[in-house]
């Protein structure tokens, strides 16, 4: 199918990653769990994953796989 799934995955996790990181940074006191600012930490993980997927999608667009 013409749609590379890495686009929606990458975009969605980048978006959620930014949201969570931002929320964790601004509302640090509401983001604590066991003394960790889990929203900030996990938001960054999601962001990294999202960007990784987007990177793959962009690379895939430049070099379409031979079918």
């Amino acid at each position, binding site marked *: 199918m013409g749609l590379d799934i890495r686009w929606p995955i990458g975009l*969605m996790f980048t978006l959620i990653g930014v949201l*969570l990181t931002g929320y964790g940074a601004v509302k640090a006191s509401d983001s604590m769990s066991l003394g960790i600012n889990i929203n900030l930490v996990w938001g960054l993980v999601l962001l990294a994953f999202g960007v990784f997927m987007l990177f793959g999608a962009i690379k895939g667009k430049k070099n379409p796989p031979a079918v």
Partner: protein
Amino acid sequence: MQPILLQWIDYTILIAYVAFVLGIGWALARYMKTSADFLTSARSIPTWVTGLAFISANLGALELVGMAASGAKYGISTAHFYWVGAIPAMIFLAVFMMPFYYGSKARSVPEYLQMRFDNRVMGLNAIAFAVMTLFASGISMNALAKLLNQLLGWNYDFALWICSAVVLLYVLKGGLTSAIYTEVLQFFMIVLGFAPVVYLGLKDIGGWTAMNHSLKTVATNNGFADNAWSSAWQPLIGGPSHNPMGVDIFAMVFGLGFVLSFGYWCTNFLVVQRAMAAKNMTAARNTPIVASIPKMFFPFLVIVPGMIAVVLATMPDKNYRIPPPPIAQEKYAQAIDEVKAATPDTAAAAITGISTTLGAKVDAGKLTSLITDNATAKLTDAQIKTGIYNSIAENDYDGVIFSLVKKYCPAGLLGLALTALLASFMSGMAGNVTAFNTVWTYNLYQAFFVKGKSDTHYFWAGKVTTIAGILLSIACAYFAKQYNNAMDIIQLVFGFVNAPLFATFLLGMFWARTTATGAFFGLFGGIASSAVFHALTIAKGNAPGVKGGYLSVVSTFPSEMAQNFWLASFAFTVCLVLTLVISLATARTKSDADLKGLVYSLTPKTFDSNQPIWQRPAVVGVVLLIVCVIMNWYFW
């Protein structure tokens, strides 16, 4: 106990997810031109995508809820559903069976049966499968709606219809591809949404070693040897009375590890359909291989939370209990009034009254001290409510995973975890509906009712079937609302339908002499024998009825799980023997030439030597089996 209040950040994450799945549907809609695009993805999808969809179609939300519950009830032995009950069968599917499914160009598993045998066998399998997928989908949607009702205070009907509508929209737009894509999205949501919960839980109880240490206390408190929760195999070897599952090793290895597992993974079109959508034979064969890698490590994501919960419950300073069955807020309010009205002298009568009000067993000691405390110094309503909550003497293990999410997730992460859960329920429905519409459209509608129409006709039939499938699922959801233990019912249906089925495939694929008549009556006899077996046996502690034994009780099993495993083993054997005997007694209707590509001995072997070594299913399969053996050995 109180419904969770979501913040705007949680709703934003939820809405973002729904927007993305709908967007995927819309983006794919323009590629949907033929019935094959819509119903089978026109065999176009890369391996890693079909592989993750394969595992995701299996990782329903009920599995998340049920596996955490089992982790709490049975400990690490629950991992047998993965290491014994999944990995070997998935590798067998990849190496031996996919070449026939994919190579025969069948569009579904029932269609393979039609090519190998005849219309009767296909019809029987297609009908059984169609009914089963609708029920699976309905049971899962019912669980979702109930959950949203209890957890977030949403209206049951609203939750059911709105989630079904989202699924309907994206499946109607993008067909199977849409379902597969959202399954992949859901896979990452589940992994990334629940991993922090597991991490925080483990950190809270002091880490892995501390958990295993505390599990010893849990085991001895429940009257078992101290390794009953932390060892996977040793408690099984001791026999049914030495492990909390109440299962013996034969039932585990043959019943679960062979019959149920191979019956599910190798013949269930819901998962096999994902592999059939792959772009070529290698991709199709590697689909279950790719899927088995995350599958092997899922116990740490889905079972460990249950183990964390039982350990937490033994730590008084953590202020945690396994949640009690859900009880309406009004009943709590009424019970609070009863506690307030009671005095230490009337405590005994009040406790009986409170138990009746709540509709649950209560711990008389805890309630008596609550009443005494309230009589000496007036407690607030909230304190009394907590007291009542903690004195309910029943556990609802299905609530374990949410209680942990609630305990550890602040706003934000909570939205992520709940969205992951919602995603998994919805993609479960989408998976079932896409499998249902392919089987209905191609194997029942086209094969028996309206033959020889144009492809456009079947394309539209597929779309109409999607709508009908969703509506029937909703009907099944309302039906399932009547029954409490949905997981048991699913297991039961799998036992009835899937267990004998693998015997049919095994003989059909590997013994050319198997005849259509033999297969049909063997399968029919197998399914019938499951029903009879169920009607005549029961598990210890159950009353005859829906749990079995409704005709008469010939045999009693130590647990329901043991009953299910033995039922499957019995049905498989009946189907195998009947098919063998009837095949030998009837004449073959298909020649060797007809069976080329359908039967192992009559098909040229697939050679993978032109593939790089890491893409050869047999090689990677063996490596994965070795890893699986190591895992079993480690948790011995």
